[in-house]
């Protein structure tokens, strides 16, 4: 038996105990997304002694991340490090007794099962609905419990999903809300205290599950606003039975099959990428324009909306298609789309 004394204050907490601590040490988790939520999840769970942590993220660190993404610092930016790698380095300094695996990759329908198949619990550190639905599909398919978390402004949401027991994410949200009604961190902002709270709740759910405290898991869609201190718990009991859910009722994994995937096309020689949405949306240009208005320049007519912000030029069409100029990397274009337009 290895020495577990470093976790003494944690297992002194009677819900965990020495036995729970040993369970944590032998547990494996995957954290999808390494931003505001992901870095807090990693920080908390690495310190808590979860034995294996896989971190998956495709992005590089930018200066405007440091305000809330707790594992990163200015040195990482100077080194131009991918988020997953920078996080892995920090974790090794925080807790050399656990194993960490950094994967710099887009998470999509072709690879997600590989990332989660050998873990006990999955944590959501993403910033978009498409990836969350993908996590949901994969977790329901492979029977992996996971925790959903999302934050914008001062407000966040979380829910814990145990396939076969609780409603899944698609029982709760059948489809993603229209993008112009879904603000993103890059358009509506985010304060670090909000993401810290939600990530702490998510991490606690993981600890409960992994230490054998399933009875204490959150069974609601929990909403908290750090600014107004408004709390709401939407009861989910019965939803699983009531919802005609394509994922957990019909076993149709629409995101995992690739049917519900954004398609990207690099435009030859133009340093631009075209993104096509899988779903049928009709964007409200007025809403979207008011969002871009805060952070850059924007104009629109009934056919298209053109905006410039963050060094990128966007041409957005009513059905959600967009041409993003300023990159020819499809993965980066997807990130930018998720940031400014949403999914």
């Amino acid at each position: 038996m290895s020495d577990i004394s470093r976790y003494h204050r944690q297992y002194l907490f009677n819900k965990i105990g020495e036995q729970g601590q040993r369970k944590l040490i032998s547990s494996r988790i995957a954290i999808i997304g390494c931003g505001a939520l992901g870095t807090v999840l990693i920080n908390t769970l690495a310190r808590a002694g979860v034995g294996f942590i896989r971190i998956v993220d495709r992005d590089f660190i930018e200066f405007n991340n440091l305000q809330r993404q707790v594992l990163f610092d200015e040195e990482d930016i100077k080194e131009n490090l991918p988020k997953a790698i920078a996080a892995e380095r920090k974790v090794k300094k925080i807790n050399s007794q656990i194993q960490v695996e950094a994967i710099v990759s887009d998470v999509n329908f072709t690879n997600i099962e590989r990332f989660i198949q050998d873990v006990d619990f999955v944590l959501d550190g993403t910033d978009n609905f498409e990836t969350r639905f993908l996590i949901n599909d994969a977790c329901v398919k492979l029977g992996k419990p996971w925790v959903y978390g999302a934050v914008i402004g001062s407000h966040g949401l979380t829910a814990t999903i145990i396939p076969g027991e609780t409603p899944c994410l698609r029982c709760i949200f059948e489809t993603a809300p229209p993008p112009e009604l879904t603000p993103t961190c890059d358009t509506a902002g985010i304060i670090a205290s909000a993401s810290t709270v939600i990530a702490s709740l998510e991490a606690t759910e993981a600890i409960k599950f992994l230490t054998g405290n399933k009875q204490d898991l959150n069974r609601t869609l929990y909403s908290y606003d750090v600014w107004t201190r408004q709390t709401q718990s939407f009861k989910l009991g019965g939803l699983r039975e009531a919802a005609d859910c394509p994922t957990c009722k019909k076993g149709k994994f629409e995101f995992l099959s690739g049917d519900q995937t954004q398609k990207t096309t690099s435009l030859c020689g133009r340093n631009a990428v075209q993104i096509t949405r899988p779903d049928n949306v009709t964007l409200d240009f007025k809403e979207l324009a008011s969002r871009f208005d805060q952070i850059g320049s924007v104009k629109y007519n009934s056919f298209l909306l053109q905006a410039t912000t963050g060094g990128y030029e966007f041409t957005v069409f009513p059905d959600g298609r967009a041409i993003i100029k300023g990159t020819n990397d499809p993965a980066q274009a997807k990130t930018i789309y998720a940031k400014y337009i949403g999914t």
Partner: protein
Amino acid sequence: MVYLDNAATSFPKPKRVYERMDRFLREEAANPGRSGHRLSVAAEGQIVQARSLLAKFFGAKNPERLIFTLNCTDSLNIAIKGILQEGDHAITTVLEHNSVLRPLNALESIGKIKLTKLKPASHGVIDPQDIKKAIQKNTKLVVITHASNVVGVIQPIREIGRVVREGGVDRARPLLLVDAAQTAGVIPIDVEGDLIDLLAFPGHKSLYGPPGTGGLYVGERAKVIPWREGGTGFRSESQFHPADTFPFALEGGTPNSVGIVGLKEGVSFILETGIENIQAHERSLVQRLREELKQIPNVQLYGLEDVTKTVAPVSITIDGVEPQEFSILLDQSFQIAVRAGLHCAPLMHGFLGTAPQGTIRFSPGYFNTLDEIGQAVSAVREILSELKK
């Protein structure tokens, strides 16, 4: 949906193509020529018939020398890489598609061959005399498109065939490889009369076969070294791929029998309809399209006005408008499918002055109507009037 992207692949296909492929795959699709049972023999029979039909269609005397490929790119690669050897010189043009330019550029960049790229006169036609002048004593291959996939301008293949066959200095006798991606099925091609040594064609464009089909005719003068070797169902005791026995030399592995059967049906449709009727209808569409687009302010038309000198692709640019954006608007607001950009022919846009954004390409096909052309043109007008606001 008004589909005006037939230069990329024809759509829809004649009904008989769908029906025949469905029946073949359900009832007849054994591995052709591999086994002696009746299904295998019958499947082989279909492929032999398809080969013979296509050979006749292109005026080739020897059907065995017409091989089936994956697409026109595959055909061009088999020919270019199978013919050119260390120290050879090749001639091509700036009109070409990347399926010609990239294999040649790659061979040139590793120092294996020397390459000359000819420019057309201002109207987009290559002067055969320029080819004659470019022939050197080590010129092995002349590769030219039969018609540009950007502007549709037809090249004088028969005259080019003549100068290439005459050869040049020091008795250089190059081979002529023609890329018929935009013409096979719309313009009569006669490999004997046109003095074409190698003809590369797609099955899925104007021959109305399904995607995944194509062919290469290899004339008697051409020696193509196969680089794809494997099972042929023929002379299996030999350790080596049969390099001189056609069609096996250039066809290894189980063929796309379902596709080939569909292609045969597409060619039968052309023969039944009459290639002259197909050509006449497509010309009437192109004529209407050009006439109407010409009247819209700020629209630049490329290519030739005389529709007897072009095939279907019609390219335009509009002042101050991104082709890619415009094509999305046509698609989502008017259900009109066109293609925008470089159309995989980068040098052509240097020539036209349309680099780097490219053009908006309308490519009507036999199944389009004059009405649909009208719809497309009014969509262009409508978008432009909204964009002006």
